């Protein structure tokens, strides 16, 4: 476990360093603290690249830890914010905020992430209750299909808003493309509190997640207050998903790939799985963002394209293995 943590932290630092140093202007390590030798590099690093890398890291770790928690809670390795339709719910919340030019004075710039979270939470409740209505045992297929149904429905809602929109079109489309570019420190500040609260909520339920792997009844017999814990985990996961989607748009598959890889390498114990997914989710999205902005320079690919390129094959692989092992 010491190895797991130290290697994950090392990978994260390497990713951060690559993220801030590679680009149209190469930046040496010393720029981090030295602002005299090369003032322009210093301002690129701290003004543009660092917030971008940190934002990518926060989004990646939020999606990854939320995915790990959802998978544990639903006992389903294919569950993640994207496949469950929760990301779409968050998008609808966020797009609606822009479309109706909603701004609640008390919340200020937190209005968008908050509505994103509300959207995420509502769509999660809807998907889960609908899936339970179809099949009490909430089989993997039922859950994924329900997620697909809700995703397409919510997708149409977004299309409808885009079709009807006038002056906010630019704002909506640029948000929808899914990117962490040109967002700067304000976005980092906007997402940070929600990430901290969401991560704490999930981390406090790490042992409960372990117990819930054996089914609700066994978990209750083990002394877990199943109902309360479920809602706490759902709330934490939705908060993280909503926050991530609000700042970066929908980025798929991070919540699927990272927990899966982590589980394969270091096991299912959520006491470690959550933290390790958090660390590695950050690294993965920082690297993906780096690739998306350097692969076809000078233009940029949406980051969701890169994650889908990695994620879809992994998704297929898990699905294949699951079906095969069940005969």
């Amino acid at each position, binding site marked *: 476990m010491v190895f797991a943590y130290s290697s994950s932290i090392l990978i994260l630092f390497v990713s951060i360093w690559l993220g801030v140093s590679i680009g149209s202007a190469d930046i040496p390590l010393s720029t981090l603290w030295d602002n005299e030798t090369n003032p322009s590099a210093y301002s690129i690093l701290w003004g543009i690249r660092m917030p971008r890398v940190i934002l990518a890291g926060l989004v990646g770790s939020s999606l990854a830890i939320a995915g790990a928690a959802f*998978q*544990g809670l639903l*006992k*389903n*390795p294919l569950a993640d914010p994207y496949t469950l339709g929760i990301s779409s719910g968050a998008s609808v919340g966020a797009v609606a905020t822009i479309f109706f030019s909603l701004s609640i004075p008390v919340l200020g710039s937190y209005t968008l992430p908050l509505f994103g979270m509300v959207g995420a939470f509502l769509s999660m409740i809807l998907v889960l209750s609908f899936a339970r209505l179809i099949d009490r045992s909430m089989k*993997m297929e039922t859950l994924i299909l329900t997620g697909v149904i809700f995703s397409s429905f919510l997708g149409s809602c977004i299309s409808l808003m885009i079709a009807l929109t006038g002056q906010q079109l630019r704002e909506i489309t640029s948000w929808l493309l899914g990117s962490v570019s040109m967002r700067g420190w304000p976005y980092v500040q906007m997402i940070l509190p929600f990430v901290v609260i969401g991560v704490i909520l999930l981390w*406090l339920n790490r*042992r409960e997640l*372990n*117990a819930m*792997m*054996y*089914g609700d*009844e*066994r978990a*209750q*017999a*083990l*002394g*877990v*207050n199943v109902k309360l814990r479920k809602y706490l985990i759902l709330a934490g996961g939705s908060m993280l998903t909503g926050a991530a989607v609000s700042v970066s748009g929908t980025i798929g598959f991070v919540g699927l790939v990272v927990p899966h890889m982590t*589980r394969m390498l270091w*096991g*299912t*114990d959520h006491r470690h799985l959550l933290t390790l997914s958090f660390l590695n989710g950050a690294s993965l999205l920082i690297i993906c963002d780096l690739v998306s902005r350097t692969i076809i320079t000078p233009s940029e690919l949406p980051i969701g394209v890169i994650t889908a390129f990695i994620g879809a094959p992994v998704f297929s692989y898990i699905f294949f293995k699951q079906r095969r092992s069940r005969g």
Partner: protein
Amino acid sequence: MLKVHNISGGYGAAPILSEISFQVEKGKMIGILGPNGCGKSTLLKVISGIMSPTFGNVFIDGKEIDQYSTRELAKKMTILPQLHATAFSSTVRETVSIGRYPHQSGFFSSWRAEDESAVKKAMQQTDIEKYENHYLEFLSGGEQQRVFIAQALAQASSLLLLDEPTNHLDIAHQKQILDMIRKEVTENDLTVVSVFHDINLASLYCDEILLMEKGKVRAYGAPHEVLLEEKVMAVYDTRISIQAHPEQPKPQMTILPDLQDTLEKVITVEHLNITNEYVEFKSPFPLKVLSSAVHNAGMGWFANFVNRTVAPNYDIDNVKEEYYQYLVDKDFSPTNTVGMMTAVDTKKAVVKNYSMPFGEVIVVVTAGVGNAIDVSQSYKRNDFFRVGTINTWVLINGKLSDEAFVQAMMTATEAKSKALQHEEVYDSVSNTIATGTPTDSLLIASTQAGELMQYGGPITEVGQVIGKGVFEATVEAVQSYRKGDR
């Protein structure tokens, strides 16, 4: 320990449990039995608090279960549901460690020495230490079940609820798991309430049985009080028979299949064949037999009977192996044959048959009385065993109850003694009338077809013919023996 008071309730509108009350003392193992859908598992869920009853209460150590917090309750009681397939792989150790959940608290909830020793002990008890670092999905069903039982033991609750703990396990693992649970009950005062599918396992391992029928308690008490033939047959709506367990003072049941026999089950003298070496009876189908014989004595089902002549100096020390080998050599199936032996010439065997309203009865006797004794005086003798014996077969076309078999043996024995008295056979030591020889064998066999004969005493139809037949045949055999060379 556990008190269930007047529970009613269940899924949906129709209550499937109604007015269930019982109490379990600490250190007892209780088995819940009943046909499918009678509410066994529902009752277990209500006791565990997973499901709330519509009416009634469940008390643990005098306190109602909803007065406990989930975590406190988990320290008192735990339930192991039937299936625990998980989507993710964990190691055996991780799985067992989760049992310590209710004992850990606080923000970081560190792993204490107490937790470690509880996990170690649970793995020892279930004999899974060797798999400690294996992944669960690579273990067999029986091993997985042991891991989950270890998880429950690591939880260290004083009341353990189980739902068919030995489902899908082979008999070795069934025995191992139940022996282990029973040991915890006997030695460490664990209280167990378990649903069973298998009536015999429940009877063997439980102190008390709760028999349920359609959501109600049909009977509650010790296995011998609850597992009565009529009661079990009525509740399960099937034909069964109950016998004693060979080692434990517990009733065991067996299913009585309703099979159609196409064969007409009749035996006649035609099936008897007397050669120089032996008297043989070969039935076309197995007969139910109660005998005192050399080979395959006791109760059982056998088609062939052999009464073999041996030399007077036959070495009896090695009789079991020698007889087995003899049967094999002579092409008898050793598992389907009852074997006796005698020093008398087989040609002197007396065969009698009697036609009775229920069917024919055949009596076959070989008698050698050179060694006759008076049983009431036998304590005065200390001479060694010699071959010289009266072997009696009574073959009945009829259906006898177990007690009729025992009574038939008594009747036949009395008739034999009477025949010796009639022939004035003396015990050479005590000089009194002999009652038999020290090595007499008797075999009662019946086809078990036709009307059931409950009794076989001297005034029953079958008893009358046994008395008459054995007497006549023995008298004739003794006379024939005396005519020959002694």
